[in-house]
């Protein structure tokens, strides 16, 4: 459960990243420090090895491989070292091809090595440094007093006469074989350094741990801040889904990712609310439309039954009741029909038909009614074949024609046309009535919407005719549109797909 929470997942990832970064950093720092420390120790050891080397060879030796330094005696005079031995004459910066050191007469007796005070000072003053010198024949010539007893002659590495280092327990030692095969060694007990390094490692661990704790705390704070609006949104959304559809999520006006999400959710809720409101309105309208004829029937019957009536009065009452009942029947049929379309049941038949024939049949059926009102119907019917439901389309056309008659001016005209155009079958019904106000135009296909409330009820119309027409045309995959000029007339245009199979 905790793994599913975004906050916890973020926290785990943050911890992982922090641990990686901190441990990488700590290890690197520790290694650098260690390398530096050893380098420093080694440098000191090498300096001492160099000094010993010079001491063993007797006299201040040149830097190895660089030749001798300039001789400070007079030119031409033989040089002597500290012990009065004669030094070979200097070459001009060239490499020494003969070994310096004691002459052949000194090989037989153990060499006495004396260290200059400066060299001794290098070891004795510091205390922790020690040295050992071996001859070519692996004899320990001299060692410092603080040298460990077990100091051993290091193994000569073949080839180069470079200074090497080795580690023995907590002892760091540097050694060097001279050209003659003598070995000088300088060493030091580095326990203290190792301890310091261990302390440093602990310090690094502690610092890393502290950073980790602060990092995780900061991460928790950040994720809390980031998650909070999401949680607020989910609370608001659950309140809305619990039925309070008019509520909105706050923060939709902020221009960030969450603000945009809130905006999208709000617009969805708004559409939902509108759909619900429309549904509620429809139900209220339907109940209103049913209650009115019901009120007529009940009050008519009660009035009539209140006293004795003549048979003519009874007859009138029954007629009124029948009239109201018929109105209710028409309304319930219309509602049922709409409900069927809403349930999107395959409610229309598909057959090949000629729209112009369907239209002509409707016009002929309606002509007596038009005639009665002195309205002329003009037809311009070109044959167009489509695939659809004759009865349903006839219902649409009849409804449009009935509207055109009802809302026409006296002695007006109706123009009915069918034609094919760009792969569409077009049916137009135009009247010369008073037109529809622009503010009513977008609503006239809505259920129970009445542009002119004063006339419709008296004409016994339910307010569902255009809604049903639209549902039928929609089910055919077509469109129905209206254009109107107030005072001049209204034109309904139905577009249907032309039958391509023939």
């Amino acid at each position, binding site marked *: 459960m905790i793994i599913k929470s975004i906050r916890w997942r973020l926290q785990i990832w943050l911890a992982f990243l922090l641990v990686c970064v901190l441990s990488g950093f700590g290890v690197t720092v520790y290694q650098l420090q260690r390398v530096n420390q050893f380098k420093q120790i080694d440098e000191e050891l090498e300096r001492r090895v160099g000094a010993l080397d010079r001491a063993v060879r007797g006299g201040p030796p040149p830097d190895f491989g660089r030749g001798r330094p300039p001789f400070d005696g007079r030119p031409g005079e033989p040089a002597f070292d500290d012990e009065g031995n004669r030094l070979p004459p200097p070459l001009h910066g060239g490499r020494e091809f003969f070994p310096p050191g004691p002459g052949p007469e000194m090989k037989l007796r153990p060499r006495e090595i004396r260290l200059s005070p400066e060299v001794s000072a290098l070891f004795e003053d510091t205390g922790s440094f020690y040295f050992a010198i071996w001859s070519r024949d692996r004899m320990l010539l001299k060692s410092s007093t603080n040298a460990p007893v077990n100091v051993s002659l290091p193994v000569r590495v073949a080839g180069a006469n470079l200074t090497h280092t080795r580690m023995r327990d907590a002892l760091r030692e540097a050694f060097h074989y001279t050209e003659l095969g003598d070995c000088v060694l300088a060493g030091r007990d580095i326990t203290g350094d190792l301890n310091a390094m261990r302390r440093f490692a602990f310090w690094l661990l502690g610092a890393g741990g502290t950073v980790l704790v602060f990092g995780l705390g900061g991460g928790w704070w950040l994720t809390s801040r980031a998650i909070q609006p999401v949680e607020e949104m989910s609370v608001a959304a659950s309140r809305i889904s619990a039925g309070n559809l008019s509520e909105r999520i706050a923060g939709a006006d902020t221009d960030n990712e969450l603000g945009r999400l809130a905006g999208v959710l709000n617009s969805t809720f708004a559409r939902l609310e509108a759909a619900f409101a429309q549904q509620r309105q429809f139900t209220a309208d339907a109940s209103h439309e049913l209650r009115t004829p019901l009120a007529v029937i*009940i009050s008519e019957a009660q009035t009539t039954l209140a006293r004795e009536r003549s048979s003519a009065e009874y007859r009138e009452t029954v007629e009124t009741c029948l009239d109201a009942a018929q109105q209710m029947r028409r309304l319930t049929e219309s509602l049922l029909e709409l409900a069927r379309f809403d349930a999107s049941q395959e409610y229309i038949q598909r057959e090949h038909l000629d729209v112009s024939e369907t239209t002509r049949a409707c016009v002929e059926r309606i002509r007596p009614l038009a005639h009665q009102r002195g309205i002329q119907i003009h037809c311009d019917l070109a044959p167009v074949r489509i695939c659809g439901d004759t009865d349903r389309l006839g219902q649409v056309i009849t409804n449009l024609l009935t509207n055109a008659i009802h809302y026409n001016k006296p002695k007006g005209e109706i123009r009915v046309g069918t034609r094919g155009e760009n792969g569409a079958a077009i049916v137009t019904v135009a009247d010369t009535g008073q037109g529809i106000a622009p503010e009513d135009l977008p609503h006239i296909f809505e259920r129970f919407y009445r542009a002119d409330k004063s006339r419709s009820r008296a004409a016994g119309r339910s307010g569902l005719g255009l809604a049903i027409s639209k549902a039928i045309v929609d089910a055919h995959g077509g469109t129905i549109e209206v254009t109107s000029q107030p005072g001049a007339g209204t034109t309904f245009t139905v577009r249907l797909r032309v039958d391509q199979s023939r």
Partner: protein
Amino acid sequence: MRILVVEDEPRLLRNLAKALREEGYAVDTAEAGDDGLYKAQNYSYDAIVLDVMLPRLDGWEVLERLRKQKSTPVLMLTARDAHKDRVRGLDTGADDYLVKPFDLAELLARLRALIRRSAGQPRPNIELGNVVIDLRARTVNRAGQPVTLTAREYAILEFLALHRGEVVTRTVLYEHLFDESDDTLSNLVDVHVFSIRKKLGHELIATRRGQGYCIE
């Protein structure tokens, strides 16, 4: 008692008018809101039955505009029974509210109560000495004996009794007892009053010369 019925369903309007006239009311009718408002503002009615869904001017609007001038009792009639609608109706100034389809007897009873209350008469019986008027049954008893009055006679007696202590002019009586379709002459009122006095005693209705009638 004169009543205005504003209702856009013609069959219902016709029926209501008929039922109310049979109850002895004078009834005016209107099919549209503006028409109804005009009549309500220009005639004095004892009660108005007002539908909510009306062409041109809906019932709320009619009520709101009427309330700026008059406090005629209004019974709203509507096919909407949402709680919100009832509250709105009563808050706008309607005195009562009835949902379609309604029971005719209930409508009549509520109208009677409205008229009685607006006349400051909470009880359904009015006693004038030994004469008792039963507003519910529309009957009159004198000393325990029922007296038969014509519808017009009863209407005049009821109106005067509901406005007890006030001097009611002939014009007012005429206005409240005859509807717009009536073209009877106003002096018929005197004929009816004479007939009431004959049945219930001369002293019941006093004549204020030059002003009108009064029940003390």
